[in-house]
């Protein structure tokens, strides 16, 4: 069973994603701030991370960069979630090495497809 880390400071979003992913048979790890997310990513080595950008303590871009430039974690696929949709933001997201970039509000079907793609 694949393990997915869901990191977002918005409780409603985390709970929704947890419900959907568990419904699909994935195991979920939850984090509500950047520090928590980074610790869980390193300690629990999830198979995929859904990462919000605007989070307290450490923002999503930084977490992504820290993981992707570390040999131990570089293979974990990261899907960035953000409320901003400007092209510029997207470019920063890509520079940090994220595998996918999804803007809010996202469709659940699309997100699930992406998750399946990276967990094959």
């Amino acid at each position, binding site marked *: 069973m694949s393990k997915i880390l869901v990191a977002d400071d*918005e409780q409603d979003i985390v*709970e929704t994603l947890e*419900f959907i992913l568990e419904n699909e048979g994935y195991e979920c790890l939850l984090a509500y701030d950047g520090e928590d997310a980074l610790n869980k990513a390193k300690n629990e080595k999830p198979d995929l991370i859904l990462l919000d950008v605007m989070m*307290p303590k450490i923002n999503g871009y930084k977490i992504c960069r820290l993981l992707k430039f570390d040999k131990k974690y570089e293979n974990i696929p990261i899907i960035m979630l953000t409320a901003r949709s400007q092209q510029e933001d997207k470019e920063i997201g890509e520079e940090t090495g994220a595998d996918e970039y999804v803007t809010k509000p996202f469709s659940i079907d699309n997100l699930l497809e992406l998750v399946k793609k990276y967990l094959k």
Partner: protein
Amino acid sequence: MSNILIVQDEKLLDKGLVSLLEDIGHDIIVVSDETEIFKAASLYLPDIALIDIDNIAKNKTNICQKLKLQNETSDLQIICLASKDCYSSEMLVGADGYVAKPFDNNILIATINAHLRIKKLLDILYTNNNELAKSLYQLNVLFNISSQLAGTLNKAKLINIMNTGLEKSLNFSLCFALILNGPEDASLIINSVYPISERLEHALKIRAVVGYKNYFEGKKLPFELSIDNVSIEKHHKTEDKKLDLNVLEYDYLFSSINTSDKFFGTVEILRDVEFTGEDSTCFHTVVKQVAMPLESAILYEEITKTNAKLEKLEKLKSEFISIVSHELRTPLTSMKNSLDIMLSGKTGEINKNQSKFLSMASRNVKRLSRIINDLLDLSKIEAGKMEYLFEESNIEEVIDFAKSTFESLAEEKNINMSVKSDNSLPKIYADTGKIEQILSNLVSNAIKFTPENGQVCIFAEVINFKNLKKDIFKFQDMKFDKLLKDDYIKITIEDTGVGIKEKDIPKIFDKFHQIESSLSRKVGGTGLGLPIVKQLIEAHRGIIWTQSEINKGSKFSFILPIASSNNKFLLELDNELKYSKYNHTNFVLINIFNISDRLGLNIENLKENLTDIFEKDKKIKIFTDKNDIKLIIKNVIKLDINKTIEILKKHLENDNYEMGIAVYPEDGITSEELLDFTKEPLIGLS
């Protein structure tokens, strides 16, 4: 070498003496007739006159005195020659020396030498005196210029002051200043005594451009300039003559107008009389003095332009937000209703998970509406469209309202909420609804950010302007000059909550600046509450400020002026100014003051009559005080004003009063300034 005028009618001096004097190097003019004396004296301007008064005494004319009184001969040295028995002392009035006849030639020469020396010294004294007077005058002009220059930020005015200054201090025939306005755009401002010919104008254009280029010889020009890009502005004083090319042969002074790093242009003056070293110093000083304010003026021009642009953008943005927010409300309403219907079970029974997600949706729809409401509020405030219904308002009631509203919320978290207030607080002049909004916002923030079992306390007190300054100036950089010098009510909301980081304090009143955004979202904040509060308080001529310590708590304080007849009206006027500014409308302010006897005046009656002519719409607002009546009339056309004045006069028939009128728009004017305008009584009001 000196000129000596000899007045004699007989052979007074022997030929030997005349030739001796001539040998020494003096020019001798000899006249014999009395009438010729004045002619010769004015014509040759002799240094010394030797007058044989024996002869003249017969005619009893006091010739010495006459010469001394005449302007051009007033400093002539006069030596009288006379026989002892032949003159009266009156004849010597005005004379500088006297030699008795018969005389020794040597005595005469010695006397002449002594007086020549006196004359020379006097001449030096006069010249020095004149120069001193001129310097003093120039200094005076310089002083005047510098004070005038400091008083303006208008480029054209500055150039004008420079020209006037140069003209007064140096009396030029012609002055031309090349002022650079931008790439390939310069103006040549020519000031002359007489009008200039076309040929001269063209020549000056070339001379200015060449002068400009020469100034930067071998260096890079700030702007490329050809004579085709120079526009001309001409002024002259009198029409008597015309100046032509020969002016270019006059003496000239040239200078660039620049500060150490900025170049504004060049200026050159021409004069038919040669310039002295002092003139040159004066010229350069004047030009140097204009460069600094010119730099400020140009910066100011740029800032004004940018400001206007920004203001326009800001307004567009506010309008955009307003439209978008309204559009958002419709679909949001449908969503909210749908969710509520499902949650109520009217569409069939829902399970636990369904209920959880429907509630989540409903909660977020509510949050979205709150954000939209806040956005709308803020855009309304910023667009000057927020309406304020000012009235005498009781702050204690507002505090009670806020306390009772949030009591249950506080109890949920076991937070102790208390109010500490001065006894019988004076009333404020405010929009009560807005004050409730301000207080509710601050109190709910305090409760939200305070952990369980904490404290929230509301303090209310009266504070006067002086103490106020002492109290708050250390916390924030505040503009006290904009505050009314009145008494204030100070409200403080203190909590034992999470506090705000010191570096974040200046930002908390900025729009969309959420500190610890997740915390703010968790407690349902929109990030717009404090900016709205700040704007609402400022619309009441109050200020808000914060003190906070992380993990200890925050203190939000604000002050509002207590109701006085003065600030009541100013608040209304502020509101009107802001509205008119953003909506490009106008209004007229009529101030009737120093009314001697209001007894005969029925205000209600007046109001009725006035509203009649404005078709009973809300176009007119009337404020009355002891001896004053102030009217604000919106969107006026000319007819309305005249009719209004007519009615006012009819009502004030038996009274002594003064009336002043001011019309908005006027750029950048404040309420106080507008009111000041109306304190100048109207002249010739018919």
